């Protein structure tokens, strides 16, 4: 029994959240039961991901290949569990659990009714299952279907609050996300017709043999995939849906959307670029330079937009646009250090942005004020929420001993190694701009005049969730240890360095 579970662990990691998502609606009114079940399943899920990561860390070399139903590739569908998938599973499960804990007992006042609150859990689990699938699958069409499942759940998460602005943001998001997936499917179509395979490994081999026959078609496939995932991952200037969607969703939903969902698409793009086209083709078609350039533009533009916002959640949403720029920049650096930095930054941004959105959300629900200028003196009344916000802000800016620093340091090393001094300057400039839009919030909160209204920190589950995330920011910054090791192995795996 135990051995059959451990040997089929990858499948269980995808199926368990999906299965629970589909049985929750049968007892949707018993919210307490749903909450308990979701938190315990998320915890088991995290343990599974940790176990998977420990197996991967112990054995060096080839990734584990799991054939679904016993059919061998290229006829069957494969799951490939390498360092990259294990790393990403850790990120997904590690962020979902605090968000699920945060939602306990807190959602009803924000979304309206108990049934709506349990619908949130259904969507959270669907999104989690789809992202786990995106991390583990080795099949192009599977990736498309899972991307669609993820993006529909994201749109539904935005529209869960019955507010006209939320519906409007969700519709905009849905239309643009579907536009993106049409591009992705088109790209997959080109890859399939060029190579005749949907399995990433086989497609990669075939692609590298035949690309010289029809370079234009390869170029079109690359562009389609770039635009598609660019829209979905909110790469500037394709980010137009993000600020509305992320600032109108309920608090835990915006944490999961900004922290995780966007990263899922970046992971898929990473797999498409490195596992399907391969580093050699990326260089041939100058994709590395394009990605670095797009990343640099996104860092500067996103930060400037964030500076000009007075609404707290919108400022955080635009800050996500800037951080996505760092990830695309790291994707294009194409060396071991740059990719390690990019992956580590992805993990640390997932933790930091969830912490920021959750603490900002609890401040907004407690005070009812959305504007930054209204938050004077909040740090004295809500010490835990604002404390976590401060720790996460320092992490995002990249102060040493906080997790953002490690990622940014490796990105800097990577850009020096590839001889791109401009990228290094932009990385530092991005940090400065990040300080410029986050530190004023902290200054107002701690040194502003204290107003009279009585607000206090949220209840126990919310405090626990916030403290877990703040602790994660510090731990990843001080002792990155095995997470960094896993990231650097994943980078080596992507670049095919043995």
């Amino acid at each position, binding site marked *: 029994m135990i051995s059959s579970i451990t040997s089929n662990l990858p499948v269980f990691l995808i199926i368990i959240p999906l299965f629970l998502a589909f049985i929750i609606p049968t007892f949707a009114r018993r919210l307490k039961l749903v909450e308990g079940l979701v938190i315990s399943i998320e915890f088991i899920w995290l343990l599974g991901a940790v176990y998977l990561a420990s197996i991967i860390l112990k054995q060096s070399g080839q990734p584990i290949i799991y054939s679904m139903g016993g059919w061998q590739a290229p006829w069957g569908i494969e799951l490939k569990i390498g360092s990259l998938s294990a790393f990403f599973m850790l990120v997904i499960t590690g962020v979902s659990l605090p968000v699920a804990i945060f939602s306990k007992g807190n959602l009803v006042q924000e979304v309206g009714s108990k049934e709506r609150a349990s619908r949130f859990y259904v969507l959270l689990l669907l999104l989690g299952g789809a992202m786990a699938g995106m991390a583990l699958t080795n099949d192009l*069409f599977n990736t*498309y*279907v899972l991307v*669609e499942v993820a993006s*529909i759940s994201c*749109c*539904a998460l935005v*529209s869960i609050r*019955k507010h*006209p*602005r939320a*519906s*409007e943001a*969700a*519709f905009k998001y*849905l*239309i643009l996300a*579907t*536009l993106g*997936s*049409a591009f992705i*499917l*088109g790209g997959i*179509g080109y890859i*399939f*017709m060029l190579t005749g395979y*949907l399995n990433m490994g086989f497609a990669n081999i075939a692609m590298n043999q035949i690309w010289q026959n029809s370079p234009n078609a390869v170029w079109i496939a690359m562009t389609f995939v770039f635009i598609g995932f660019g829209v979905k991952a909110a790469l500037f200037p394709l980010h137009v849906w993000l600020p509305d969607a992320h600032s109108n969703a309920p608090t835990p939903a915006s944490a999961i959307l900004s922290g995780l969902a966007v990263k899922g698409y970046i992971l898929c793009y990473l797999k498409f670029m490195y596992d399907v086209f391969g580093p050699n083709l990326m260089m041939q078609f100058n994709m590395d330079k394009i990605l670095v350039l797009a990343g640099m533009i996104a860092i500067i533009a996103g930060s400037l937009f964030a500076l000009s916002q007075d609404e707290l959640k919108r400022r955080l949403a635009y800050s996500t646009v800037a951080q996505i720029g760092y990830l695309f920049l790291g994707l294009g650096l194409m060396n071991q250090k740059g990719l390690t930095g990019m992956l580590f930054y992805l993990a640390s941004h997932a933790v930091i942005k969830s912490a920021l959105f959750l603490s900002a959300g609890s401040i907004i629900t407690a005070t009812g004020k959305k504007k930054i200028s209204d938050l004077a003196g909040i740090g004295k009344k809500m010490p835990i929420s604002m404390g976590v916000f401060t720790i996460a802000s320092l992490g995002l800016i990249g102060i040493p001993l906080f997790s953002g620093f490690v990622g940014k340091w490796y990105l800097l090393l990577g850009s020096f190694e590839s001889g791109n001094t401009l990228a290094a300057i932009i990385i530092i400039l991005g940090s400065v701009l990040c300080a410029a839009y986050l530190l004023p919030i902290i200054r107002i909160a701690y040194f502003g005049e204290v107003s009279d209204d009585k607000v206090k920190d949220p209840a126990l589950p919310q405090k626990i969730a916030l403290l877990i995330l703040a602790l994660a920011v510090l731990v990843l910054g001080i002792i990155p240890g095995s997470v960094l090791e896993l990231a650097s192995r994943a980078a080596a795996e992507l670049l095919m360095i043995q």
Partner: protein
Amino acid sequence: MKILFEKLLINYPYTIAVLLFSIGALIVVNKPNLFKKLIGINIMESSIFIMFVGGGYIRGGAVPAIEGGKSHSLYINPLPSALMLTGIVVSVSVTAFALALIFRLYKSYGTVDSNKIVKMRNEAMGE
């Protein structure tokens, strides 16, 4: 130029797919009516389906099944058609969800024109 046209004519499924894709994208970007945006999305997705199915089709190929012990020299590739069944299911669910959202927007704003909705929302925020 003549060769280009010949190529476009011979590969007519792809030509149609590209045309439909552009038409769909144009509708999504240009039309303010939410229903029309949704129709545009559907046209775009259909164009991708045509591209896939066209890619699997071989002129003169037989149905990929051995019937009565007779085998053919050419078979149509059934995989893209099977994939597109899944694609159609995905596009139907997106459409259903989008229609529900349009219904909700119509109930709260009384219009399906996106320009008017933006205008009304900005006025509400200005107050």
